[in-house]
């Protein structure tokens, strides 16, 4: 357990240069999730790609390096993906945080660098915030 494990170079890169931040006027669903203990916040929109089951992602967020890097990674992994595809990644991420699953780069991409967070229970919610928001948004979009 040490700091370098949690804050790997790749995490700090995502934090400083996040991918895919943005906002649209009209989305198929928009959700805001917060981490009430620290105030981390994400507003995430999904827009269906016509003729597919897939969704593009737009988000605005504020929070710590972990929650911001995690959202950037989420964008890389799930932008343009369907619920079925994305859910596998979300479940994998949750399992990795609970230490019931070894990180798999094929599924999580840069997300495997978040594995160090699992040693710090209070930070796990930071890492999962955007992933939970994405799942929530896509389910809402499909429901409507």
């Amino acid at each position: 357990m040490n700091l370098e494990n949690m804050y790997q170079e790749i995490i700090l890169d995502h934090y400083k240069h996040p991918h895919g931040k943005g906002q649209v006027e009209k989305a198929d669903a928009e959700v805001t999730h917060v981490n009430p203990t620290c105030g981390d916040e994400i507003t995430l929109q999904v827009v269906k790609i016509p003729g597919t089951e897939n969704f593009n992602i737009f988000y605005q967020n504020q929070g710590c390096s972990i929650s911001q890097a995690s959202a950037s990674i989420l964008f890389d992994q799930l932008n343009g993906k369907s619920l079925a595809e994305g859910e596998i990644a979300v479940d994998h991420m949750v399992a990795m945080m609970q230490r019931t699953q070894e990180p798999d780069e094929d599924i999580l991409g840069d997300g495997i660098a978040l594995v160090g967070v699992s040693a710090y229970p209070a930070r796990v919610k930071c890492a999962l915030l955007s992933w939970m928001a994405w799942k929530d948004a896509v389910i809402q979009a499909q429901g409507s």
Partner: protein
Amino acid sequence: MSKLDVAAIQADFPILSRKVRDGKKLVYLDSGATSQKPKQVLDAERDFYEQRNSAVHRGAHQLAEEATDAYELARKKIAKFVGAQPNEIVFTKNATEAINLVAYAFLNATLKAQFGKPLPDGAQKFILKPGDEILVTEMEHHANLIPWQELADKTEVKLRWIGLTDDGRLDLSNLAQLLNSKTKIISLTHQSNLLGTINDIDTIVKAAKAVDALVLLDACQSVPHMPVDVRKLGVDFLTWSGHKMLGPLGIGCLWGRSELLASMPPFITGGSMIETVTMEGSTFAAPPARFEAGVPMAAQAVGLAAAVDYLSAIGMEKVAAHEHALTELAIEELLQIPGVRIIGPTNTDNRGSAISFVVDGLHPHDVGQVLDNNGIAVRVGHHCAWPVCRRYEVPATTRATFYIYNDDSDVFALRDGIIAAQKFFGVSK
């Protein structure tokens, strides 16, 4: 089933080796009021304070992490003990708060609906209309009576109650009339703390389900003494106290079906139960956090989990069998004393170990005093169930209650003490 090793159990309870009233051995027959605590529980609490004390769910440093883990592990163990899921267990300061929490859910939902304020999905179950009814029984502890009287005083619902038979049981002859389509909730005790009666929850649950009424079971006198499984019982809420089951003072539990908890507005509000807060308004966290405002009693939760471990290691079936045997013996011995009358069932069918009695010509207080003088701690008075005393036309009773650290010799001490009281006051027959 092998018997309890009472001597080994007694050795775990430091207080049992103290002397009372000028050197007399302590015979503790007041576990119905509060149980004693084994050193395993005291050690667990102390270890929490000495190793990981911190405000749970409020920090990210190592102590806060460890304290939070210990608190949530305790919740898991306690949930498992009653067959529940962890997120269905809310920690309160005692059972009384737990019952009030549910009563206030009705009040708050009703008022918020009236003022058009946001409520959780499913809150309709808690919104009271004029003419709605709430049902309790005549054998309730004040903790399960006054909160409902108060609710009725502040809304337009009517409080009704199931009466008692002469032999200390619920009078269910007019149940269908009392538990009807207007009934929002029936709140009753699993085991009477005064009479010892164990109620027939199956019948109540079936009748309540039929009219879509909720069922709250006050399990203060059952969870410590017998196996209790919330799913098997089929009730909607279960409430009990830690201090009556070897746990620390200052902690109680509410179990509720998760969909019900989710549909209830908060009761006590403040920190750690919120989702977002602005000066203009706030939204609330999911249960159990929604109902645990403020820094919680984490050390007590850890102590209670140790109590659960202790009881589980013995086995609740064995605890119940042990108490059953003591109850049988006590009833037999007491009924042999001329002038002694038991208030409550005089057989052991569906009956726990709370034995209330009166002695002809003696006030229960005076009986208790002589017993106390002999080192025997019993409770005297109305036992926070005053309507039961009124029902059986006694001003009060003397009550003995048994637990895992009691044995036959304690029953004999009780018998001898009662006889001594009769002699002392000159009322022997």
